[in-house]
């Protein structure tokens, strides 16, 4: 027994090493920088600095954009996931691969492609120009930034929802119809409540990267829509203010933890309605 547990410990060791090196150690660094000044003395000044109107605005904007992107992803992804889950197993595999296909390409390249599409002289406007429409100003707008988020994170919403929906027992749908549900109430009363766990993980997987993203807002927003991610990046890359950057990261983590906790609570209370 003792020997076996030793082997088990040994088997777990790579994971422990990984966690310590790449999760716990960086977190400690973040904490250290967040609560110290440039000379390494303990201080709260990094946090009080964040209460400036300009930073608060950035935090607010980040939360709003991430929230909008998540809601849009959910609205778009649910019918797609449902449609895929209804397909034959073979077709399902192909469709899921198509959903993931863009993720095989580099994130930067995909974002650049959207720039080429959305620019005033870009592909979409050139095309519309043939019919005498436009040019419509799309790049460097808030819409473009949210579009970038929705586009990039949509697969993270589709896949967990699909995986839950594809496991819903067809007999339950028949039972609901048998008891008087029309095709619409079958979805609202049975399919949707049963897919809540997938929706929760989808929301988590979209909201977290959306709120912490940078680069999308820089490229598609033209620098007009600074998000927390961009601001943090600037502290580290250009301003070299590690302490302020770390405190922002710390607050961002808090926002994520709080919002996820609230959402999970909603899901636990009554498996039904989240939004």
């Amino acid at each position: 027994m003792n020997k076996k547990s030793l082997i088990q410990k040994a088997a777990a060791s790579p994971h422990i090493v990984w966690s310590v090196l790449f999760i716990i150690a960086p977190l400690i660094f973040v904490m250290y920088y967040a609560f110290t000044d440039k000379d390494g003395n303990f201080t709260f000044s990094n946090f009080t600095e964040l209460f400036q109107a300009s930073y608060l605005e950035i935090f607010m904007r980040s939360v709003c954009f991430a929230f909008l992107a998540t809601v849009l992803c959910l609205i778009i992804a649910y019918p797609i996931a449902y449609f895929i889950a209804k397909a034959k197993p073979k077709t399902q595999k192909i469709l899921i691969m198509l959903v993931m296909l863009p993720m095989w390409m580099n994130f930067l390249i995909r974002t650049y492609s959207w720039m080429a599409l959305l620019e005033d002289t870009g592909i979409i406007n050139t095309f519309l120009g043939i019919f005498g429409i436009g040019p419509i100003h799309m790049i460097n707008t808030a819409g473009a930034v949210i579009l970038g988020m929705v586009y990039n994170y949509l697969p993270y919403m589709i896949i967990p929802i699909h995986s839950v929906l594809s496991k819903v027992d067809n007999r339950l749908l028949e039972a609901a119809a048998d008891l008087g549900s029309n095709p619409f109430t079958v979805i609202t009363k049975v399919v949707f409540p049963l897919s809540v766990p997938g929706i929760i993980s989808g929301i988590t997987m979209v909201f977290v990267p959306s709120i912490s993203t940078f680069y999308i807002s820089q490229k598609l927003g033209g620098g007009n829509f600074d998000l927390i991610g961009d601001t943090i990046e600037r502290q580290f890359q250009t301003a070299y203010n590690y302490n302020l950057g770390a405190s922002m990261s710390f607050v961002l983590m808090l926002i994520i933890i709080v919002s996820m906790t609230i959402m999970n609570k909603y899901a636990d209370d009554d498996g039904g309605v989240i939004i």
Partner: protein
Amino acid sequence: MNEKKIIELKGVSKTFDDEIILDNIDLKVYEKEFMTLLGPSGCGKTTTLRIIAGFVTPDNGEVLFDDVKINDVPPHKRHVNTVFQKYALFPHLNVYENIAFALRLKQKKEKLSEEEIYERVEEMLTMVNLRGFEKKDVNLLSGGQQQRVAIARALINKPRVLLLDEPLGALDLKLRKDMQNELKNIQRRTGITFIYVTHDQEEALSMSDTVVVMANGKIQQIGSPTDIYNEPENAFVADFIGESNIIDGVMLDDFKVRFSGHEFECLDKGFGKNEPVDVVVRPEDVDVVPVDKGMLCGVVDSVTFKGVHYEIIVTINKFKWMIQSTDYVAPSQKIGIYVEPDAIHIMKKSEFSGMFGDYSSFSDELEHLSDVTEEEE
């Protein structure tokens, strides 16, 4: 039994992937009837049930409800409810909400108050002996309890017809017997027509008013349990329902049949002269007698004690008979057998003739095969 017809199938056929599942089925179901569709896996009994429920559309033929064609009426608009195999309870709802499901759907339209729903759910819970289980999670209930919830859920809407798809298949023997009685009581009390699907012949015989024996997508026989047992129409029915010795015979004349090299008196008539027939003799109707008094005699192959009786396999003219007797005989002993005229049942030759021979290959393994619990499709 009330003679008012409620459901009728006329010439119903169904093919899945080039395989004929149902072949020209005609069936009439009457009000307040307890009808059982009985047959082995793949005989089409579940498909018949699903056609009545509306989950399967027949390729040909008509489904009539109160003489109105309902082929294209979706399940949610039919006046039937189903108790599903393995229950299909909603895992996200508790016992109360599972049972109230059908009422919640029409709560707004019919302006049902919470009190009315509460009363109806409680009434159902009382009927299935589950009071006090309202708040329980259905995933934590035992099989028998889930079964009861499924029955209550299907009955709350007061359907004209309740369809039950092997509802007791997942329960252990003792519980199954109890539930059989309970279902029969519920059916009597509510007066709802039950259409019950099972592969268990004993269940079919003990619960039903009418048994429909199915095989190969066709109805082999419709009749009361006693008719089905005593007057099987062909070798399949005789073999599937209970134990039987099915012997090749020749009908010499009315009331006279010859088999195993001996001429027997019987009660059947109306066959052609010297018409080849299948003869059924039930094992419990064969009397063991001393050799000199026997109509036929043979050597005992094996004797198995079954509790109520001994099961004796005896070879007579190369045919292995099964005999059930309360008297012990020793293996290798020579015995005579005696068969009363009313114990002999004559059947016309059918596609099943010769498929169910004697008991030479009979073993516990085969006995086990005859009550498989595997699902259809």
